[in-house]
């Protein structure tokens, strides 16, 4: 169960072997640049870069299929929604042929941005082992305590999914049946036997975990190192340089607006 929700696929592609810090820098530059890109000619290069990044990871289709189903649903839904709102409901064109290209731009620019961000983020998530995020961010200058919050979150996340499943089965053995019918509020109240025990036991365990960490010296200053020491190769440094240059270019384009 827990292994089913962790979306990391082992591999030996060029993207898998990149330093996680280089990957994080690249993905954040792509996402920020996509945010700043204000027209289709500016979004297209980013989309191509994301696509190249995704294809270089050589992810097996059988593993990413379920994710792409969700992305495709979101894209289809938003395209229809955009079309409905832009072209039909709120901005009816006076001369249909004259403004159709403008409608096309307004409907598809946001979708292309969404696809760019999705491609970059999917590649990062599928090629980076979850236990490397906190060391990577910690070694990028994030404070130890902040990085540790991420580490704790990723550490306990699969455990709580398992805990939810166990609690659900235990309650069902006592006769609890989550029902689909009834009104909205009854449906929410119906979840209490599942939601309350898991949340309360998790929040009471906070004190025990904090005690255990303090007994091992957590919170003392200046004595923490990371077990996984990351080293950047020349290739990783090149990726970081290119990412930062890309971001700088998009910031400059956004400020100057030559197009």
């Amino acid at each position: 169960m827990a292994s089913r929700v962790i979306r990391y696929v082992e591999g030996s592609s060029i993207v898998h072997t990149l330093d996680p810090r280089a990957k994080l820098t690249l993905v954040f530059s792509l996402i920020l640049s996509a945010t700043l890109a204000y027209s289709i000619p500016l979004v297209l290069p980013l989309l191509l870069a994301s696509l190249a990044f995704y294809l270089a990871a050589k992810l097996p289709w059988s593993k990413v299929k379920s994710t792409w189903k969700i992305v495709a649903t979101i894209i289809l839904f938003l395209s229809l929604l955009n079309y409905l709102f832009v072209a039909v409901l709120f901005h009816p064109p006076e001369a249909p042929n004259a403004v159709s290209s403008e409608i096309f731009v307004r409907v598809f620019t946001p979708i292309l941005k969404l696809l760019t961000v999705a491609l970059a983020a999917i590649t990062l998530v599928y090629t980076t082992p979850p236990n490397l995020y906190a060391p990577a961010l910690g070694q990028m200058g994030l404070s130890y305590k902040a990085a540790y919050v991420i580490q704790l979150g990723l550490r306990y996340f699969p455990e709580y999914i398992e805990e939810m499943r166990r609690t659900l089965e235990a309650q069902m053995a006592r006769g609890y049946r989550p029902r689909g019918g009834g009104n909205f509020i009854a449906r929410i109240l119906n979840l209490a036997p599942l939601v309350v025990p898991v949340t309360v036991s998790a929040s009471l365990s906070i004190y025990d975990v904090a005690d255990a960490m303090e007994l091992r010296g957590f919170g003392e200053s200046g004595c923490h190192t990371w077990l996984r020491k990351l080293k950047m190769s020349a290739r990783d440094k090149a990726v970081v340089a290119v990412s930062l240059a890309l971001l700088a270019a998009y910031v400059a384009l956004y400020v100057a607006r030559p197009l």
Partner: protein
Amino acid sequence: MRSSYRVSGGVAARKPLFSTTSIVAMGIGTALYAAFNVFFNLLQLPGTQLVALRPSVAIPMFFGYVFGPVVGFVSGFLGNVISDAISWGGFWWNWDVGNGLLGLIPGLAVYFVKGESKYSKQGLLICAVLAVVASIIGMGFAAFTDYIFGYGISTLEEAIYALFLPAAVTDAVNGAILTPMLVSAYASAARGRARRA
């Protein structure tokens, strides 16, 4: 005798913002919110019909109300980052911030509800009201930044009718019902334990 003990205990219990307990509360809140999101949205469990929409929003609200605004914000923000990344590889910083606000705003109760009255009937009512306010502000932020930055949508009307209203209403109803329930269950479970927030 008893009251003097309480007063001194109350003063000594004031913790620094980033104490180990807060750090762990942020981590556990993050994990729990992400797990609830994935559990209710993604997993199909045999023999059950868990069809309530986003009951998980009560988690950041609960952590914010009990452990303070910063813990609430981090739980909502990071929990949403993890569950989005797990479920489909998305990264939408503005929805993450919006989910963070869901936890931050109930946490503001710490400034006007003092000590034990947080868990009284009046406190629970304030908690429910703050959950509604948080849903409006948090989802409003997410929906309107989607429009401003052009993530997937391109009109203000879409931001209002297709994103803001459905998200804010479901989150407000879920939060207003489940959060006080969790807070009062937590208060009775923690009663008698030496250490609690």
